């Protein structure tokens, strides 16, 4: 690990002011410290934000829930309001990492974790995300875990978060503060596709700090599912994951939300596929039609083309599970 200076401010504004151009905020540290040990991240300053007053979970005036950026993943997953109103979020969080990591990792940090692409992590190989312009090791390398949607010839990495996939389906917003004030970013615009600038994972400004994640009132607690397909039963990143949420009138679909993890540089949604399901009966045939539409244009590489059919089947399974109400408390 490289040498760095360390400070622990008490207020959000102080933290933002203290951060230098080459420094980083640190919360749980579970990903950042790992990256620093691998020399992938080499900040010369860490601003420890753990003393900031960002640990509340509170009901919003709109009837939603505001989760402070420093609330631990395990605290969110087991919070009574989250379990009751947003069980999809609980299920997704508990599908990720290990109990120890969930006890450390913060809500804001989860969104900002970097890809687990082997080439991003190995500083002996080229990676446009780690070192812009150096090339992509994964494109013609071992790419079993990589993207099938939204990738570019610069980067085929995927975003590793499970929590973010549920937040995308629930249409959460990300509250941030920065030198120019506060703003609110919809989850759909928070993570970005790699394009020609794969070193940028998100639309967060360099000196901006996540202060909270806000959930709208609608939690889909009756009909939801998080299906995660991985190489071992627990404690592994998703090959494909699906967050599915339905609003049903009898067997007719009112609203459908479908977000995919493990397939793209961001949680993947296709509004046309969700619209396709609206007003239709909740049948496997209709779910398959939506799945085909979501995976339209998907392109695999040498080792990961299996993900295309896997994703379609996972979508059908997740929607079927959601429609059955099997997960409702």
């Amino acid at each position: 690990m490289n040498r760095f200076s360390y400070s622990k401010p008490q207020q959000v504004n102080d933290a933002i002011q203290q951060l230098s151009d080459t420094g980083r905020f640190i919360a749980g540290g579970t990903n950042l410290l790992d990256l620093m040990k691998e020399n992938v991240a080499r900040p010369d300053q860490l601003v420890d934000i753990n003393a900031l007053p960002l640990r509340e979970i509170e009901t919003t005036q709109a009837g939603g829930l505001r989760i402070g950026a420093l609330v631990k993943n395990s605290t969110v997953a087991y919070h009574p309001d989250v379990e009751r109103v947003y069980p999809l979020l609980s299920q997704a969080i508990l599908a990720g990492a290990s109990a120890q990591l969930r006890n450390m990792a913060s809500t804001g940090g989860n969104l900002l974790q970097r890809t687990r692409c082997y080439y991003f992590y190995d500083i002996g190989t080229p990676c446009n995300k780690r070192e812009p312009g150096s090339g992509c090791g994964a494109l013609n390398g071992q790419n079993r875990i990589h993207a099938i949607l939204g990738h570019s010839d610069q980067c085929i990495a995927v975003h590793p978060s499970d929590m973010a996939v549920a937040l995308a389906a629930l249409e959460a917003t990300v509250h941030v503060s920065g030198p120019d004030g506060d703003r609110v970013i919809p989850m759909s615009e928070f993570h970005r596709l790699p394009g020609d600038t794969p070193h940028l994972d998100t639309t967060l400004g360099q000196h901006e700090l996540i202060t909270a994640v806000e959930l709208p009132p609608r939690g889909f607690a009756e009909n939801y599912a998080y299906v995660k397909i991985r190489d071992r039963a627990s404690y592994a990143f998703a090959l494909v994951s699906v967050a599915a949420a339905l609003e049903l009138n009898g067997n007719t679909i009112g609203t459908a939300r479908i977000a995919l993890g493990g397939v793209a540089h961001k949680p993947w949604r296709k509004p046309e596929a969700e619209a396709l399901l609206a007003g239709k009966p909740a049948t496997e045939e209709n779910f398959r039609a939506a799945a085909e539409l979501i995976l339209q244009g998907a392109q695999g590489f040498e080792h990961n083309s299996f993900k295309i059919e896997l994703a379609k089947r996972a979508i059908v399974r997740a929607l079927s599970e959601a429609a059955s109400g099997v997960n409702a408390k």
Partner: protein
Amino acid sequence: MNATPARQLRPDAGADTHTISLNINGKQHELAVEPWTTLLDLLREHLDMTGTKKGCDHGQCGACTVLVNGTRINSCLSLAVMQDGAEVTTIEGLANGDDLHPMQAAFVEQDAFQCGYCTPGQICSAIGMIAEGKAQTRDEIREQMSGNLCRCGAYNNILAAIEQAIPACKGGLRE
């Protein structure tokens, strides 16, 4: 418990050090640490408490699991300076003299290890898991313990040991 005087952990440590206060296994320590020292390295390399193991050093194996304020975490992925003021419990803090903690005794009785390298992390993790109160069934215990790998494959006996110790551990950490 008397606090020991602040201990300079490295003779060449200069202005970069931060003084922190840690209660480790009931004993108060005032320590001058460099910010890049992990909690794991502080325990093992600076305090010679080698019961906590370094396996992968990347949060993937769980061998470094300790309890911080009663919660299980990976000590390899936490900076010591970030734990200022915390209460840390390691494997060395569980037994009362020769009187083993119920979880330790259960691991012995159930033969829940071969090489033993993952065992301190398994035991601390299991105690943390019981305190969390989320695992009731065998499958839930397996799931909740998935952050602790055992290369010897003693999982069945580890599961049996945890099941055996649950009733005695319900009150949390024994004082």
